[in-house]
């Protein structure tokens, strides 16, 4: 059975059909990549899956349960977390605090007013563990605003991981990262694969073909093809609409 089920999502901005009857399923542990040109509507789709944007029609099911009317925060607590294409962190918090507050969000009440949170070993231990997975543990005590761009992307991933998602929505985790750094990042993602279902949006085709179990191609808000990496690579429609330019370049 699929863990995440997207049924006939539609969304328009004025005359622009930004999401056109989008349906797909993601099985537990599966990594489903969504690729498509700039402005295809990928981020808007993630927004609707995460609850930040309301779809005009259609439904999002998490483990068979309709969450379409649930807020973003409620979905996160049900196990549906996201990362942002444009890094969204708490700039004046340390790296550790950024992750620890996400751990706190899923472990116990945040209506505790007296005990010093900085001294909660359980939160900090969990946060360190997550930082290690994202390759950032050596930067734990640095202010988040002082990180490099690549480190910001790692922190963005770490915060999402800290919520312990069952389904993780990653919006271009590699945005702006290149070369060696990108390789290391892909390796970390590969190591995490299988622990949760993933929807991965990514422009880096090496990363997509290395990581994805299945790929959907989104063009002008519409999924024009879904299949295994091999099927997508050899799909004539996809080559014409998208991959062709990419490989020629």
């Amino acid at each position, binding site marked *: 059975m699929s863990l995440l089920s997207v049924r006939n999502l539609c969304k328009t901005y004025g005359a622009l059909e930004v999401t056109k009857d989008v349906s797909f399923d993601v099985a537990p542990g599966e990594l489903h990549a969504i690729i498509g040109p700039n402005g295809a509507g990928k981020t808007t789709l993630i927004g609707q899956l995460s609850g930040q944007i309301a779809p005009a029609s259609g439904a999002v099911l998490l483990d068979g349960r309709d969450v379409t009317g649930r807020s973003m925060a409620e979905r996160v607590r049900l196990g549906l977390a996201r990362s942002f294409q444009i890094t969204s962190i708490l700039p004046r918090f340390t790296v550790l605090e950024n992750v620890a507050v996400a751990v706190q969000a899923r472990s116990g009440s945040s*209506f*505790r007013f007296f*005990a010093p949170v900085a001294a909660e070993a359980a939160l900090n231990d969990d946060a360190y563990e997550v930082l290690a997975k994202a390759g950032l543990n050596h930067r734990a005590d640095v202010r988040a605003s002082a990180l490099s761009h690549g480190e910001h992307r790692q922190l963005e991933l770490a915060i999402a991981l*800290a919520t312990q998602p069952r389904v993780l929505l990653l919006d271009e985790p590699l945005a702006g990262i290149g070369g060696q750094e990108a390789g290391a990042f892909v390796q970390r993602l590969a190591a995490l694969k299988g622990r949760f279902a993933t929807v991965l949006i990514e422009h880096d085709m090496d990363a997509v073909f290395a990581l994805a179990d299945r790929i959907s191609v989104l063009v002008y808000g519409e999924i024009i093809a879904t299949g295994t990496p091999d099927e997508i690579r050899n799909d004539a429609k996809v080559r014409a609409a998208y991959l062709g330019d990419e490989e020629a370049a």
Partner: protein
Amino acid sequence: MIGTATPAPARLSARLWLALLIFACFAALPVIAAVTDDPFLLLIGTRILAYAIAAMALDLILGYGAMVSFGHAAYLGFGAYAVAILNSVGVTDLVLHIAFAVTISAVFAAITGAISLRTRGVYFIMITLAFGQMAYFFFVSLSAFGGDDGTPLPARSTLFGSQALEDDRTLFYVALGLLIALFTLATRIVGSRFGRVLIGTRENPVRMEAIGLAPFRYQLTAFVISGCMTSIAGVILANQAEFVSPAFMNWHRSGELIVMVVLGGVGNLTGAIGGAVVALLLEDWLAVLTEHWRLLFGVFLIVMVLYSPHGITGALDRIARGRR
């Protein structure tokens, strides 16, 4: 813009020292008053203590939660009128006065906060101002308590049945004790789980939502806590002046509270206390110098904002860093 850093442990303790220094100066004030034989010093001191509590309470939401309430003087009024209203029915105990003030304020803050928090930025400022003015005009129309003119209190609150507060010095020390207790409470709150979430909503509300913490409940809770604390300052003010009137909750007062917080340095509690001290002392001194003291005070504020946008505590930080 709003809010300085989440205080790193080292900085926090520097701020704590500064707060302790201010408290020590306050504790010595009655001695100075006795030596100089100046009875007004204690009354001025008590007034400053009350405003320090109110400014600190405002900083809790303004500095830590980026909620600029322009209606906080309403809670000063609730505190003051809680004393007058209970006195009029024969309930004179200070603890009951505070309990009543806190209860009214909690209800008012919960309702108006829930509505105001649907807006952001300038709209939040305007809507809190509007609610503050509603409270103001409610008490203006309350003819049983003197309406616009207010009403004198027959006596100060009693303390466990005794008239101890009639002594200015006792009232002063009770006010100081309340300031220290509320400062301790606020310091604990900002360092707690709740405080971390509140500061997070100031930093990036969307990020908080995306880790599963919808800001509204935390912001509203902080708003209520802040209103309740401010009302305690109102109870002190009524006892200090032995008089209550809607003037306590005029929108000017709300503006003055914001000025105190910004002057002291937002988002570190100690700054708000320092800001209240400096603003009220300056006001008194400048008023003696010239009747145009507001103008001088305005000039001082502009210079302060230009040269030290993070207020007095920000300037002290800079000096400390320069020395190191």
